[in-house]
């Protein structure tokens, strides 16, 4: 998933993710839990939610959410 103007990508590492759901609480428009793993929802405007995505990444207890800027 890429921010159109910032060329930032958001990925969830399924090897690290333990489905704690913290990201879904912080950024419900961006993340969901499917089959026991967090995923980035398709078609989301990531720029609009950039702040929540950073917060979710910083707070993830398994450090599974990666932002590449």
């Amino acid at each position, binding site marked *: 998933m890429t921010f159109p103007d910032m060329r930032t990508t958001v990925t969830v590492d399924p090897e*690290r993710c333990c489905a704690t759901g913290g990201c879904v609480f912080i950024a419900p428009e961006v993340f969901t839990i499917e089959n026991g793993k967090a995923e980035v929802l398709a078609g989301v405007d990531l720029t609009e939610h950039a702040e929540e995505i950073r917060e979710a990444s910083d707070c993830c207890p*398994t450090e599974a959410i990666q932002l590449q800027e």
Partner: protein
Amino acid sequence: MRDSGVTWDEGWRGWIVAGHKDVAELLSSDRMTAERLPNIGSQQSEDTRVAADIMSRWIVFLDPPKHTAIRPKVAPPFSPRAIREIDGLITSTFREHMESLRGQTEMDFMREVAFPFPATVIAGLFGVPAADLPVFGQWSDDVASLMHSGSTEPAQGVQSLLQLADYLRSLFRSGVTGPLMKHLDGLDEEDLVATCVLFLFAGHETTKNLLGNMLVTLSDWPEEQRRLWSGEVSEKRAVEELLRYEGPAKATVRIAARDVAIGDTVIEAGQKILLALGGANRDPKVFDRPDDLVLERSESGSLAFGYGIHFCVGAPLARFEAQVALRELPRFWTGYGDVPPPEDRQWQPRLLNRGLDELPMRVAWR
């Protein structure tokens, strides 16, 4: 137990699930409930009623939506970001403590290092004065025993829980605070006290056991220990494998809220289930040579901190404390030995956690 995966235990009157896939699925299933207060004695007594009220506010015993209302308010102090902000404090706490022991060539590692280090860290983060650590440590041990089906009399655990809660309540009312308290706004006083009781004991008890388990395991695997101390393997990777191999949380309990089928077995609504985290972490379907300690293991998926919405809130702190210990110990010691052989080790008589009562050793200081 490992091969069949799901077994009924007549003595415990519940199911034991030990396969990795089943444990992870059940931990993230909404067919399970975490609302399962341990039996802490007769509800007739006022003390027991108050203690039960405190425990009923613990997120480990709450399902959504109650869980969802509290967990996001109590998780921020332990986020990887928050822990990075205090990494210097944690490292200096360890170093100062080790300096205070310098020269002791024989010690019980549990009493001298594994207990005081994480207890000093968590107490400091919540503003508990260092002078109160011994009494706070005893209360905390009693509460842990109550929680983990240990041998302490429930009445003793209840008294200690109430004393710990009263102690924290007066600490907060007197305005004492620590670096993590700033993250805990938005809770009412009773939820705050209950949560801090939980975090204070959970925050040192499990880490204490992890530290002891790491040292006893490394003494059983001298070649892996050598690779760690020589820097061939990072302490970060070593901690992950040590958590998998001999983590402090052996198992966790859930109750089926609805019928659940696992393979050919149907677990009926209302039945209790012991989810064997330790068994799942030795599942040969996931981990190659599961009973070997392989510090540079490539497989991931350890369930040492659980899975799903109850994944350990304090995992980033516990991981960091364990990494600090492994990184710093060789700065103080050239080695340690004379650890009791397996048959002489004093494991705590508890159902849910894995930890040593004592770990005598001989230490060579630099």
